[in-house]
């Protein structure tokens, strides 16, 4: 049995009690600090929200009382700015926010970038992008040379894509870090059209994820200038590129000529044939009907179903389908046409 002297035990208890006491004091102080922080932030919000509104929207005078004194007031200003930027578009307001942030908030975020805590650094990077603090771009480039996480690097790319797009294109070319498609999409959607379109110039040099993200972003941006670029991708061997390009063209919804799409009616891949059946929705039925009839007799259920839907959406579509039912010998196609007609008439 271990023998412990009473004096030793008492010493241990006293030490533990002292530690507990110190820890409690620390927690209380932290709590007090947090309360004070929240109180200062809320007081600023209460006192100056209207002032900010007048300055930003009504051309009211700028007052030095708006300049933050301390972190809590910066947090309040962040809340005000993000409320405006998330909900309202107004060039004048955005310019004023940018000007103010570059002037009065820069020093806070500059300091945050040197913080040891990842969350503080990330928050600073987010704010630099949101508030357009371009005066911190050099600091960001210096920051990139330090040991940073993948997430921080991604935020840096976002900052470059906003402020220095040439640098951004260079960085994603040389980057050893590979992001997911959705992450690349989040970056590309911020690019100006003139820069974004350059992704299609040297298309083969990009990784698959970048290629796919570029095609999908073009579909989301829906600009006419991307139609030609997407049409060029239809010649690629890679099926995924072909299918996504077709999907992008369908999303943009402007089919200026039918010829480039006709060979795909006989494609080996049902996904391609399905996309063609969808694309023909944007073509007058008189030009597309012969091909849609062919797709209506397709082996694949999805293709047949889409072809029938596309025909039925036209004003003369139902009559065409009824005519088809009388003349066709393909029982599967007839059933699909019948089902679509019934459903369509049910909707009406």
């Amino acid at each position, binding site marked *: 049995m271990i023998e412990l002297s009473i004096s030793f035990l008492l010493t241990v208890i006293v030490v533990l009690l002292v530690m507990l006491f110190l820890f409690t004091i620390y927690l209380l102080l932290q709590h007090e600090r947090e309360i004070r922080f929240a109180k200062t932030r809320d007081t600023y919000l209460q006192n100056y929200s209207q002032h900010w509104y007048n300055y930003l929207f009504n051309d009211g005078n700028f007052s030095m009382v708006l300049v933050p004194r301390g972190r809590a007031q910066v947090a309040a200003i962040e809340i005000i700015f993000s409320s405006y930027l998330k909900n309202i*578009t107004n060039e004048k307001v955005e310019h004023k926010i940018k000007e103010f942030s570059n002037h009065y908030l820069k020093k806070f975020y500059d300091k945050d970038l040197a913080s040891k805590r990842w969350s503080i650094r990330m928050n600073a990077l987010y704010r630099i992008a949101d508030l357009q603090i371009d005066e911190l771009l050099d600091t960001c480039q210096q920051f990139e040379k330090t040991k940073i996480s993948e997430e921080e690097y991604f935020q840096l790319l976002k900052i470059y894509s906003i402020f220095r797009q040439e640098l951004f294109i260079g960085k994603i070319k040389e980057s050893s870090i590979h992001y997911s498609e959705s992450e690349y999409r989040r970056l590309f959607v911020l690019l100006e059209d003139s820069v974004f379109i350059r992704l299609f110039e040297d298309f083969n040099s990009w990784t698959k994820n970048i290629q796919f993200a570029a095609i999908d972003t073009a579909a989301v941006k829906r600009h006419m200038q991307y139609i030609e670029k997407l049409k060029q991708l239809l010649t690629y061997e890679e099926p995924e590129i072909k299918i996504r390009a077709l999907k992008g063209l369908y999303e943009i919804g402007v089919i200026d000529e039918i010829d480039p799409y006709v060979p795909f009616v006989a494609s080996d891949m049902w996904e391609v044939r399905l996309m063609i059946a969808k694309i023909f929705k944007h073509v007058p039925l008189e030009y597309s009907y012969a091909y849609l009839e062919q797709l209506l007799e397709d082996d694949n259920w999805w293709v047949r179903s889409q072809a029938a839907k596309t025909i039925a959406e036209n004003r003369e579509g139902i009559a065409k389908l009824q005519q088809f039912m009388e003349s066709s010998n393909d029982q599967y196609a007839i059933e699909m046409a019948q089902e679509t007609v019934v459903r369509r008439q049910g909707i009406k």
Partner: protein
Amino acid sequence: MNKLIIAEDIMQEHEVKGYFEILRESVIRSRLTMTVVFFKLASSPQGTDIERNQVNHQISAFLTSKIRKTDLLFQLADGVHWGIFFLQSSEVEVKAFLKRIFAILKQEREYQQIALKASITEIRNNSVNFETLLDKNKQKLANDEQPIWSIQQVTDYRVQPMEQVKVSIIEQNAIFRKVLETTFTHLDIPHFTLDVATYEDGYSFLQSETYKTGHMHLVIMNDILPRKNGLEILHILREMPNEKKFIIYMMSERNSEGATLNAYEGGVDEFIVKPFNLRLLEAKIRRTFARFWL
């Protein structure tokens, strides 16, 4: 003394009075302008009773052939005035109508003995009774020096009454909610007064019960809200028996066709993707209200 000549195949003054009172009230309820025109023969036709009778019938037949099925033609008891109620028509349309028929009357040989003058009254409120309307128009047309084919105007009833509109802003973000409140409080829409109230979540809006009053109600809300979300509120409002009184604008951060379609199919009048331009929102609201009156 000349005998009064009344065309028996069109409505007469005493028959029309009751109709006028109903139509006048319907102007307010449906917010559709009505315009009344009175014609008077510019000079008393000369000749025998038979000839004057013929002119009278000719005018009645001519006007009957030119009006639409929604217009109501009648003759006044004095036999030298005719009137037409143009429903759902503003003064501009009626002036165009008058120019057209006057041009025909001046051109066609068969109407050469007819010379008319007219007076127009645009009605957008219910503060006029039939007798006063007749008196005012008759006075306008009584002046013999007034040129033939001239068009006079009675402008006393053209201002529509002020209508109170309830505006409910349902937005979680306090700062943006305040911005919307300020915007709508300062928004000046002719003939409508906006009574603005704000709510931070769907439940408090429903609890307030302001939506149960009979006023026209403009609801500006986010699609995602705490406690009761925007789509639920939309559903509740559109299920109400008098759902047409609601003008619903839905704001959303989701810029997708699916979300937009879903909202329109659910019954929103406008779907606005955030962030948006406040001036654009104001312009849309103004257009929405401009559609209420012709």
